[in-house]
């Protein structure tokens, strides 16, 4: 129980262990712990940031969708309008074409009619002359009669 050299032995031993701990144990462990703490904090930050990014991306996506829907609706409207327009135009064209064809046909009919009239007049004049020649038999002045008959034919 008496105080002896053990006292100083213990002091030296103590100093050695404290030195060892200070040099090889404490800094290493504390450093690793601090670094890990930093890493965890960074990781949590990153996760939060990612969450926020995701949220903004989602809201962006829904915005875009809205715009796209509106655009699509606009395009459909336009297309419908355009289709109506085309149908209308086609109708107008068809009517115009029909009219044009009608006019042309009428003109052709007129032409045919005139030509037939012309031919008929010629034929009537010949027939009348031949008829009159036979009736009057050679005594008739051909030139005076022709003018008379042509006058008659023009009245037809």
């Amino acid at each position, binding site marked *: 129980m008496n105080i002896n050299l053990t006292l100083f032995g213990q002091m030296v031993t*103590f100093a050695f262990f404290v030195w060892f*701990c200070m040099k090889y144990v*404490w800094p290493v*462990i504390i450093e690793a712990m601090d670094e890990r703490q930093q890493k965890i904090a960074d990781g949590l930050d990153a996760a939060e940031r990612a969450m926020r990014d995701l949220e903004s991306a989602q809201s962006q996506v829904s915005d875009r969708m809205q715009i796209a829907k509106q655009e699509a609706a606009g395009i459909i409207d336009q297309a419908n309008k355009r289709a109506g327009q085309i149908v209308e135009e086609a109708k107008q064209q068809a009517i115009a074409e029909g009219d044009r064809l009608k006019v042309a046909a009428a003109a052709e009919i007129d032409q045919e009619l005139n030509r037939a009239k012309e031919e008929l007049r010629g034929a009537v004049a010949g027939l009348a002359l031949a008829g009159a020649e036979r009736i009057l038999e050679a005594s008739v002045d051909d030139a005076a009669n022709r003018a008379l008959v042509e006058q008659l034919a023009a009245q037809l």
Partner: protein
Amino acid sequence: MAGENPASTTEYIQHHLQNLVYGLHPENGWSLARSAEEAADMGFWAIHVDSMAWSIGLGLLFCWIFRSAATRATTGVPQGLLNFVELVVEFIDGSVKDSFHGNNKMVAPLALTIFVWIFLMNFMDLLPVDLIPSLLSLAGVHYQKVVPSTDPNITMGMALAVFVLMLYYSIKIKGSGFVAELTMHPFNHWAFIPINLFMETVGLLAKPFSLGLRLFGNMYAGEMIFILIAMMFAAGAGTGLVAGGLNAQLFGEYTNGWFWLIIFTLVVGVCWLNLKGRVSTIKTVLLCMIFMTLGGGVFALGGGLMQWGWAVFHILVITLQAFIFMVLTVVYLSMAHEEH
């Protein structure tokens, strides 16, 4: 083991409280002391081999455990030993940050060393008091105190080392302010310098003494109680089957180590079977009590229960004492760093 007669009881206790001493004997020169008288004759020039060996051994154990954890320290997921070590380190770091406000890289490692080392030294108290001394006496070593912190040399050695640090930092940080603190406090007048000096010196010296003696006193008392309880195991010797059990019947006053080893094996075996789930807990407790009663009688049973109870309580004491030593060291060093 001691019988019931007072002389051998005293001997038993004294034997347990005697260190293994190597020193300069006036007649034998440098030698191992073979008796308490020889150890006392050696005076100051002696060293407690057992205290030093256990203390250094446990210090090395601390260094080894914490160093191997430190080499494995990663910034990734900590596992196993590293977890435990980091728990301790973080606890110490928190305590130091709470009570130490100076800027000193040494205080935290110092606190860690003190806490773990003293805890390990105190922990030796929980080993059965006779276990290691008996084994070593078989090997020819007759004196052995396995708890270094029951040796005032060890506790005062650490306290004095702390005291040296206190003085060093007081002078380094405060310089002449430290002298002023000693002389001009609490009465700030030149006429009071002698009184101030006396009071402050007493106050200063009280710190290492209280630090070292508190730990020593607690551990010494705890060890003493373990020794007293241990005597119960043989107290019933020669008193018949009920009080002394088979031990008393078979061996009388001279107890036999092998006999106790058998009892010990039986008790440990039952506990092991319980842990494996083969024996229910109630049966385990009953069987253990029956074995102990058979072996050493009612006294041994009582001794066993008391040993167990005191050990459970002592777990608290050893941790608390290690913690108190550490916190006070930090507080004293913090005071050394603070200017008034």
